[in-house]
């Protein structure tokens, strides 16, 4: 009985070099087999194929591209739209064959593609080091008189790949709502792997996606995956392999740049965590975010500052007027200011641009002002997904992030929730106006701050040319008092305090005076007592002398004359 080694038999894969595609396929496309790539016109089939070949060339492998639809010149032009064109087209390991059927070709019976396989086989030196693309083979197979014969040729290609160890991409044009070309119906289930590309108009913009319709013998993501095409070609922005998070939850606190706010947050926000600042227009969200960026740069940390719909120069100038200096760190290169236009592109492309910025600049801190602008971008139904992916990305990379979110006039907490940011961010503070007695004062309240004791009280936010500061809290009943009312209350408090101080001083003086009087009395009594003691001592002495004289006088042996005795009795010495 033949023994089967599961490791040897298991489907082997070859990397396409497209990070997202390699991630969702668990390592690439089937090695030594044919993969079918289907899609409507302009869905990106040719570009995806060329990009895989360019990546193969970069790895030192060989690439064979057989075109059945576009002219070789057009294929080269296609490639030239992308950054990798040069290394692909100039490589001596790149071969491009023109296999377009002649426009006036006629048919008289069934044919096969053995010739094609033979021609290509002659150019392949080492199949394990070569990627082959048959681009638009349906253009040739449509000449088969029967669908059966056409499908049979696709099967023949598949068998040949398996026998010869060719890793091949076979592209074909989808037919309306059907996945496969009209005359190749059913081929989507023939090969071991099938990818479907699509490009649909959504809000006047092209929305691209990729789906793995089939991947025999391999786990894979089955969803329709948003796909973008930019100067670097095709990418699945949400599906690049995630960096295994080796960031341990930091206990280090990072300053928000506003000492009093740090105090409210128990020392600042945790390094690597995220803070959402939401609020209506003009509530100083940007200023607060800029304080954070300024503080980060002062600590010497690389900071990426992404502004939607605001140009760097006016933005930085306006911040300077409230005492925030971003110009210096921009000049020193510590702060990278990037201005993006929310409307210009799709939310998925914004995400990818942000991801590339994070890859290239490797910031320690990030500000996005406002992240809610993503909701304005087209295909913004994906904004929630984008923000979730973004937060996941920065968290895994340990980037301390401050996001601002613009909320509606009537609904200060609404849009932050719509974008899902508020649920994902570690800390969330809401800036608002407090209107009282004809005054509009800015307020700040911390809605949540994970892992921190924090004040839940609304604070007054003060904006001056020295930047943002928080005013001390004054309560009036159950309310927090701000603005002039706060100043009045503060003055009243100060007056009361002064009065209390004076009263305490007067009381002390009174006590001191009374203590002085008591001391004087004590001293008088002491003197009196002393005098009295002196008098008492004198009297006692005289009494003793008198008693001694009496005794002597009455003594018979005394030398004192009796006459003297009588005479001297009762006299004092």
């Amino acid at each position, binding site marked *: 009985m033949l023994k089967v080694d599961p490791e040897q038999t298991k489907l082997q894969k070859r990397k396409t070099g497209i990070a997202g595609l390699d991630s969702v396929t668990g390592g690439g496309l089937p090695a030594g087999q044919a993969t079918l790539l289907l899609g409507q016109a302009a869905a990106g089939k040719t570009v995806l194929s060329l990009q895989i070949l360019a990546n193969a060339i970069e790895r030192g492998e060989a690439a064979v591209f057989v075109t059945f639809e576009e002219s070789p010149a057009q294929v080269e032009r296609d490639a030239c739209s992308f950054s990798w064109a040069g290394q692909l087209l100039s490589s001596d390991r790149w071969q491009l*064959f023109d296999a377009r059927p002649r426009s006036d*070709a006629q048919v008289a019976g069934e044919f096969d593609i053995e010739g094609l396989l*033979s021609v290509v086989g002659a150019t392949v030196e080492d199949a394990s080091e070569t990627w082959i693309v048959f681009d638009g083979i349906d253009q040739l197979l449509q000449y088969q008189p029967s669908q059966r014969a056409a499908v049979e040729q696709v099967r023949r290609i598949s068998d040949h790949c398996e026998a010869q160890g060719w890793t091949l991409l076979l592209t074909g044009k989808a037919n309306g709502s059907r996945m496969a070309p009209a005359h190749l119906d059913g081929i989507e289930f023939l090969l071991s792997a099938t990818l479907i590309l699509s490009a649909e108009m959504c809000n006047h913009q092209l929305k691209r996606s990729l789906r793995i319709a089939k991947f025999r013998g391999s786990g894979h993501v089955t969803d329709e995956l948003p796909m973008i095409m930019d100067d670097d070609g095709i990418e699945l922005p949400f599906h690049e392999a995630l960096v295994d998070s080796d960031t341990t939850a930091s206990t280090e606190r990072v300053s928000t740049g506003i000492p009093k706010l740090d105090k409210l947050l128990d020392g600042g926000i945790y390094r690597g965590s995220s803070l959402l600042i939401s609020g209506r227009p003009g509530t100083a969200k940007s200023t607060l975010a800029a304080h954070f960026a300024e503080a980060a740069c002062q600590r010497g940390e690389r900071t990426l500052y992404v502004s939607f719909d605001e140009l760097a120069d006016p933005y930085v100038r306006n911040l300077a007027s409230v005492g925030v200096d971003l110009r210096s760190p921009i000049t020193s290169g510590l702060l990278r200011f990037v201005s993006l236009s929310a409307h210009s592109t799709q939310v998925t492309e914004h995400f990818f641009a942000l991801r590339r910025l994070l890859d290239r600049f490797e910031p320690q801190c990030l500000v996005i002002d406002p992240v809610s602008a993503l909701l304005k971008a087209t295909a913004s139904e994906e904004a929630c997904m984008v923000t979730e992916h973004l937060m996941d990305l920065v968290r895994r990379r340990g980037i301390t992030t401050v996001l601002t979110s613009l909320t509606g006039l009537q609904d200060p907490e609404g849009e932050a929730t719509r974008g899902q940011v508020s649920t994902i961010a570690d800390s969330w503070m809401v800036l608002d106006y407090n209107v009282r007695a004809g005054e509009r004062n800015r307020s700040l309240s911390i809605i949540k701050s994970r892992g921190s004791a924090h004040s839940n009280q609304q604070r007054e936010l003060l904006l001056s040319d020295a930047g943002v500061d928080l005013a001390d809290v004054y309560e009036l009943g159950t309310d927090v008092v701000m603005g002039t009312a706060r100043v009045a209350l503060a003055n009243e408090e100060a007056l009361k305090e002064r009065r209390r101080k004076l009263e305490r001083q007067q009381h002390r003086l009174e006590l001191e005076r009374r203590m002085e009087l008591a001391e004087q009395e004590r001293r008088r009594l002491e003197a009196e007592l002393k005098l009295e003691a002196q008098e008492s001592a004198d009297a006692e002495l005289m009494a003793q002398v008198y008693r001694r004289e009496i005794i002597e006088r009455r003594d018979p042996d005394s030398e004192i004359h009796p006459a003297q005795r009588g005479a001297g009795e009762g006299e004092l010495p």
Partner: protein
Amino acid sequence: MSLRPESTEFAMPLLLLFVTGTAPRSQRARVNLFRTLEQVGRADIQPHEIDLLEEPKEGIKHSVFATPALMKVGQSGDVSVLYGDLSEAEPLHRFLSDLNDE
């Protein structure tokens, strides 16, 4: 590298039959072509056979990858191609109809 046939190289012979060894469709094409040439009275024409299994580079040179395929090169260098095993008589007759004018 991009290759298209240099059509003017083949003023003669007039017919090129691209085949792949002894594949059944290639075999049928040989038989069908021979018979039809006889039928149209041009048995004198000897089609030049190119076996892509033996000469794969010829496929690139003439941009013919499907076999069997019959290529006709006119006196003026114009090239036309008929794909298939030539089992369908009508298109084959039509394709060869101008041979007598050559």
